[in-house]
């Protein structure tokens, strides 16, 4: 009976110690991965995270997605970001993460799908509005680009990038008067800006 008690106590202690040890091991592995990342040793950083990897852990998937992206292993990076998205479909950071390797391999349809989903979750998200606007603009879909750039400019009227993109979009839509105002506004924000000056030249 005494032996049984002893074994039970030892077992409980080992389980408790095991749980704490697991957390410490995880934190140490992540900490080492940050150090390796700083030194651009992505292979070693990936190895550290993989040593404590849990497929159901959102953070592990995000971290591997990021490190693989830095290591230019875009296909693998997308795989881990996809898993993170599946684990937390409400998290927009996983989608922003996925967009990086997807853009690197120019998978624009998937990039667009991620931006649309981000905007469904967070309609006012300026980064998504702006970059989806850029995607539409590059596809010469000025109507949709206009809607998105306008939204950003309304939120951030002094943001040069959005103002200049909206100006060019208006110009391409044939709205020269609106474009002129916006190019001039861009010049006020950034005096002597070549893009704004070349736009104004086209209007004159």
């Amino acid at each position, binding site marked *: 009976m005494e032996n049984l008690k002893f074994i039970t106590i030892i077992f409980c202690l080992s389980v408790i110690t095991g749980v704490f040890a697991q957390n410490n091991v995880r934190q140490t592995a992540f900490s080492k991965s940050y150090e390796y990342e700083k030194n651009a040793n992505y292979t070693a950083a990936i190895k550290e995270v993989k040593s*404590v990897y*849990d497929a*159901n852990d*959102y953070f592990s*998937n995000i971290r591997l997605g990021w490190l693989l992206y830095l290591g230019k292993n875009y296909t693998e990076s997308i795989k881990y970001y*996809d898993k993170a998205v599946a684990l937390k479909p409400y998290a927009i950071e996983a989608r922003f993460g996925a967009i990086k390797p997807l853009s690197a391999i120019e998978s624009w349809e998937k990039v667009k*799908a991620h931006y649309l989903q981000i905007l469904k979750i967070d309609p006012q998200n300026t980064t998504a509005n702006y970059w989806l606007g850029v995607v539409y603009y590059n596809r010469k879909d000025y109507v949709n680009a206009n809607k998105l750039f306008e939204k950003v400019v309304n939120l951030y009227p002094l943001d040069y990038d959005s103002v200049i993109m909206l100006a060019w979009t208006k110009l391409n839509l044939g709205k020269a008067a609106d474009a002129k105002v916006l190019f001039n506004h861009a010049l006020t924000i950034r005096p002597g800006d070549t893009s704004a000056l070349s736009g104004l030249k086209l209007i004159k």
Partner: protein
Amino acid sequence: MIVLPFFAVSAFSQQRLNPTVVDSLTYNYYLNGNWNELITLGKQATNDSIDFKYLQQRMGYAYFVKGNYFAAIRHYQNALYFDADDPVSHTYLYYSAVNINDEAMARYHISKLDAENQAFLKVKKSRLVDAVDVEYNYKINKDYAINYALTSDLRSNPHYKRIGLNSQLGYRFNLYQSYSTYSQLTDYFNQTIQNEYYISGVYSLFSRTSFMAAYHYVGTTFNTDTDSLKIPGNLWFGKLTHSFNRFDVSLSHSRFTNDYVDAKQTGLQFGFLVPVKSKIYLKSSLYNITESDSSRLVFNQTIGALIARRFWLQGSATLGNLNNFVDNNALYLYNSMDHTTFRTGASLFYYIGKHLILFTNYTFDKKLIIDSQYIYKQHSITGGLIWKI
């Protein structure tokens, strides 16, 4: 005539036995149904290094009649050392195996009989549709408060459905196939669906030694409003089992892989059937799971008993992190999003007749949400039936 053997045993116990006397007396006891005397003399004779096929067969039969099937098996197996093809030994090993509910062993010994004896036992060599089983499982998450700050912590009550088909392809080979599906909502717009196919084959290498190989396809799909992430997974399993007397021991190994997981599991199981009327069966299993460069142990203790005529009750407890845990010969893979850190439960089997078994199971799981480290409880209820055609 009846009194004579007693004198004979008494007299011979004082002096060395010889094979002729042992043969004569044991045959006499056998004919007269004096099982206890036969066993006593048989033991005495074997202690005196007197051993021959008929002695072992007679002792085997004596134990068989007394209902001690494990001892009967031991003696009939000893008889096979003298004559490996003896139809009587194989026939009674078959009957003994039937009585200890070891179908694989029973069929192995039929395979050793000639066509005439096989026909006499009326057991078909092959049956494409030997048995069909179905089960439905519903899990209820309790003490589960949705954390509105962590919307991805939402967990709906999952469902699991399964259908299986057993085929006997020869006396020594058994094939089992199963299809199952699992579904759960794990976020406000995320549904996990897992469709699985399982196939296993068991080959009887020897009378009480078998090798099992299984493959389990695990197709997981995460569906959201816009995306669908499909993760096909493969689970391979192998197991070697050997039984001796009332003990059985198994060594198993499995490997589950998909795009994200590579988990290996090695297991060692010990089973023991307690020699009591209610047929208490104890099984202890220890597993070592290796994934992501780390290992952990899982321990399971099961106890089963015949609690009433036609009712078998079985309880079990499992300790350890059951993430990607392979159970029940790889028929079940515990790869749900939240890890089970403790499990206990009980199953009740009701043998309605020769062909139909109803079963129900209750399982309690302690579940851990990885990201938030939130622990909740899960109650799981299963109902099913096995139809032996």
